[in-house]
Structure formats: structure tokens, C-alpha cells
């Protein structure tokens, strides 16, 4: 990914995130969060993580933000009280962030940098069984991102995947129990 395009997506992401914090209307915050996630998905795609970029759009910008906006509208929060903002949380937040940023710049400026290593896809094809989809795609010089992740997910990460399924079931049941009217 060329540097100008990197900065384009990075600035979309950072300005979107800043707008989430600074805008007073919760619906506007949620919308700028969608913009922030679109920028982040662009960065993911630039890092050859196509699957992660797509689930970032589908799951975050598609599903999770719809849930947020649904709850904001359900609770009718557009009648935002125009209270004067308190100084202590703002000063605390800015203080933490300035300290964090200074530390971040200090750490990054002292660590050795690393350029983007080139991916030699046809050479990597010898590591996979000839004739499989992964080997075919690699020989054709395209990265079979979803196939690689799927293969890893259902072999090496099979147990975590099933635990994750149980977690989603528990979350679903928990949400139903929590949102039932207590009588």
C-alpha cells in the first residue's frame, strides 16, 4: 500500500475515532464510529488481511453498530441534556492520553523499524499439497486468505472455536434473561 493511501485510511480512522469522543449526539458518535471502522478495514486490506477487513465491515460496521444505534433510539437519548461538562474528567482524560502518547512516541522512536517484507506466493505453494485450492491460488499468485484461515480454524484452533460457540450461546441466553421484564 503506498504511503498516501495509508495516511488517507489512517486519518479517516483517527478523525472518526476523535469524532466519536467529541460529538455530543450519541447517534452522530455511532455514525463516526462506522467511518472509523471503514478506515480501519482499509488498513487491514492494505496489510493483505482481506478476511479481517471484511469481517471488520460486516461484523462491526454492519451488525454491532446497528445494535448500538437501535439501543440509542430505543432509549431515546436524543434529548441530550446540555449540562456544562465537568473539568475533572476532561483534564484527567487529556492527561492520561498525553502521557500515553509521549510514552508511545518514546518507545517507537527507540525500536528498530521494519520494512514491509515482500510475499513470494508461488514459492510458498510448495508447502501445501499440490492440487488443493490453496496451492492452486498460490501458484496463480493470489493469496487464499480465507482458505488459510479456515484451514487453521478447523484444525489447529478447533477447540477454541467450539468454546467460542458455547460463549455465543451463553451470551444469547444471557441477553434474553437480562431483557426479560422482571415481575
Amino acid at each position, binding site marked *: 500500500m503506498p504511503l498516501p493511501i495509508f495516511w488517507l485510511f489512517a486519518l479517516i480512522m483517527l478523525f472518526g475515532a476523535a469524532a466519536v469522543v467529541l460529538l455530543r449526539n450519541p447517534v452522530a458518535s455511532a455514525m463516526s464510529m462506522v467511518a472509523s471502522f471503514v478506515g480501519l478495514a482499509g488498513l487491514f486490506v492494505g496489510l493483505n488481511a482481506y478476511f479481517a477487513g471484511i469481517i471488520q465491515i460486516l461484523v462491526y460496521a454492519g451488525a454491532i453498530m446497528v445494535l448500538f444505534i437501535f439501543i440509542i433510539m430505543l432509549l431515546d*437519548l436524543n434529548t441530550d441534556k446540555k449540562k456544562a461538562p465537568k473539568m475533572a474528567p476532561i483534564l484527567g482524560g487529556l492527561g492520561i492520553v498525553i502521557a500515553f502518547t509521549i510514552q508511545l512516541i518514546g518507545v517507537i522512536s527507540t525500536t528498530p523499524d521494519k520494512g514491509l517484507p515482500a510475499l513470494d506466493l508461488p514459492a510458498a505453494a510448495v508447502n501445501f499439497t499440490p492440487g488443493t485450492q490453496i496451492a492452486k491460488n498460490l501458484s496463480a499468485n493470489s493469496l487464499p486468505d480465507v482458505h488459510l484461515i479456515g484451514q487453521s480454524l478447523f484444525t489447529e484452533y478447533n477447540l477454541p472455536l467450539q468454546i467460542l460457540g458455547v460463549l455465543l450461546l451463553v*451470551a444469547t441466553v444471557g441477553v434474553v434473561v437480562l*431483557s426479560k421484564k422482571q415481575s
Partner: protein
Amino acid sequence: MPTLNHYLLVAGLLFAIGLTGVVMRRNIIVVFMCLELMLSAANLTLIAFSRFYPSPNGLPDVHGQMLVFFVVTVAAAEVAVGLAIIVALYRSRQTIYTDELTTLKG
């Protein structure tokens, strides 16, 4: 071409912005959104390291992307449960502003 430090700097800034929101905002839904921003910053770091340090077969390291997959899924479950808790909180207290939830204040 952007280097690894570019990505780490951007991810760190995104994390810092999310942390500001968690400390500064009083609307608990916006606090929750900022938590999601912080999780996404961690995801960006994982993806950057998986691409800049390829696995021995010359492809991007799939383990980092697996961790991102799991983080996104757990975050989705967390959002569902958290928003249900916020709705239950609103039903019992009629507010979602953190400075008005002072039941535990001594």
C-alpha cells in the same frame, strides 16, 4: 511504503483516543463504543505484526489473524450482553449517565 512503526503509531493513537473517550464521556453507550475502539486498535497491531513478521512458509502469519477473529467474535458477544445490561440499567434507574449512577458512592 508504510513501515511497521507507522502502523504501531496509528494503532497507539487510536487506543489513546478510545481511552480518552472512556475517561471523559458520561454517556455509558459512548463509553462502550470507545471500548470497541480500543479493541480495534489491538486488532490493528495484531494484523500489522502478522504481515510484517511472516511465518516460515512465506505467508502472513495466520495466528495473528486467528486472534483477531476471536477478538471480534468475543467483542460481538460482549456488546450484546453489555447493551442488554444498559437497557436493564435504564429500566431501573431511568438514566445512563455515569455521574448520576452513584448508588455505590459512600
